[in-house]
């Protein structure tokens, strides 16, 4: 297939990459350099940092719940994409089916909300 429609995207990627590279590279060159005694001293931090915070670096499970809910609605959005693109061709039938679909996923949302799945504490 012809890849020319993707040229703008490739260009954008290149721009983003170049900008990041530029920012990192330019900072030490143009940044101010003011040294004082404290800055030049080797940092002494006492004992070695403990390798892990308490609990072994584990996250509470509520983060997982949030991630899972995000995926559910992310996948819902994926289905909106072709529907939105082909909206004119699908007409009322497509609209009704999409409303049904969103309505059904909204049930999950209502359940999660009511049972406090979106509360943080």
């Amino acid at each position, binding site marked *: 297939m012809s890849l020319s*429609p993707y*040229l*703008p995207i490739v260009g954008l990627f290149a721009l983003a990459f170049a900008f990041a590279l530029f920012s990192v590279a330019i900072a030490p060159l143009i940044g101010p350099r003011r040294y004082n005694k404290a800055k030049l001293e080797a940092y002494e931090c006492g004992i070695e940092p403990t390798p892990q915070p308490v609990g072994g670096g584990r996250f509470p499970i509520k983060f997982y719940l949030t991630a899972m809910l995000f995926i559910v609605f992310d996948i819902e959005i994926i289905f909106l994409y072709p529907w939105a693109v082909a909206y004119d*061709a699908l007409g009322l039938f497509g609209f009704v089916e999409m409303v049904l679909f969103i309505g059904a996923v909204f*049930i*999950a949302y*209502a*359940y999660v*909300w*009511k049972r406090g799945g979106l509360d943080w504490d």
Partner: protein
Amino acid sequence: MAAEVLARSLAEPAVLAADVKLPDIDYLAIAPMLVLFGAACVGVLAAAFVPQRLRYRVQVSLVIGALLVALGLIVTVARAGRAVATAGGAIAIDGPALFLQGSVAVLGVVAVLLIAERSLERGGAFVSRASLTPGSAADRDQAEQPGATEVYPLVSFALAGMMLFVSANDLLTLFVALEVFSLPLYLLCGLARRRRLLSQESAVKYFLLGAFSSAFFLYGVALLYGFAGATGLGALRKAVQAGDGNTTLLFLGLAMLAVGLLFKVAAVPFHVWTPDVYQGAPTPITALMAACTKVAAFGALLRVFTVAFPVGAVDWRPVLVAIAIATMLVGAVLAVTQTDIKRLLAYSSIANAGYVLTGVLALSAAGVAGSLFYLVAYGFVVLAAFGVVTLVRDADGEATHLSRWAGLGRRSPLVAGVFTFLMMAFAGIPLTSGFTSKFAVFSAALGSGQVTLVVVGVLSSAVLAFPYLRVVVLMYLSEPAEDTPTVSLPGTLTAAALAIGVLATALLGVAPAPVLDLAAKAVQFVS
């Protein structure tokens, strides 16, 4: 240059597929599934908005009501004599589909009766809040709280998915249905009130292996699409008939598809999950899986092999025959060595999968009818058997180790009698449904010349009778020990489930003709 391309791509309106032809949907034909899906959605809302004390009643009546309405609709559709491929040809509502959907609905009602039981144990067989760490202080506090009511919408989703699974006429729809009924089952397996770690382990095992098998299934679908350029079962058959496709893709795809389906029916060598999951899951859910999942999985297996691949049968039949033989033998032999009643029933269900496969492999109308009948008959027996397992309890919940069943016949002759009858049905003693159903599949297999299958089937049945009889002997001929568990008085719901199961087993053994006729009439697939 990039700017030019960008400008062009923005200026060029996307060509719209103006010729999208909207599908004809026969709403009556798919109404049973719609009812059940709708009930499940309402159930989810009820789990959130109905006050805690009313939830249980609302949920149970919702599921059972929806199942009965669905059953009524199935009967209506069947009476009207419809056999259609609807929703763009992706769903086939024909004889086998209606028979299997009806079976799922009836067996589903019985399973829900077991699931909804709350008098054997305070709060029922399901944990109240599954998110609490097993063994923690909060977990001990919830020991007597009522079980989670999310169980019921999940069961509805599973049953609706099974109904779609047996009527899907397109491999992609089949896959979605597979996921729709599997996902709730994975969850339900992990929600037991007692022995929660075992239950959660079984859920994880089932989920991981199930996800693997789904991946195999999907890869198979992709390869078959590569072969035929379509995923509809009818289109696949035409492509196989035309015979000008790439046969490597066909066989590889078919093999992977079969792995996915055979995993769900628990055929050897895709059976390893069965004993662990059956043992760890809450017993009513085990009953649901043993009865309804088996019906659904075999329904799809029958449809796929009968509708899409009858032409290539010469090539795939020997493989499936080998699998059926291995399934019957491994299931029967390993059942002999079991010391836990739930694991024993799990291995017996593996062996029974082999017997149904025998009917499927007859590849004849009689074979289809025999398999359909077998699935219903086996479903009732296994539901009742697990129902009895829920009754035998001690302070720690169900006493599933076989040694604990010693002397049960003297303490509670009625329950032991019922279980003996069910064991006889499993063993295929005449005047029980086990005999008629085995007869139906074996005679169908003989009719199409599958002598090896029948010989192995009969031999393995004889082997399998041993563990059943051992349980019976243990119950009657052993002295009750100090720690022989008491048999709880069944609540109304379990009693009803047991009564239905035992009655059906007896009726299908004594007067099987109406159901056999129904199955014989229901063998015509459409595509």
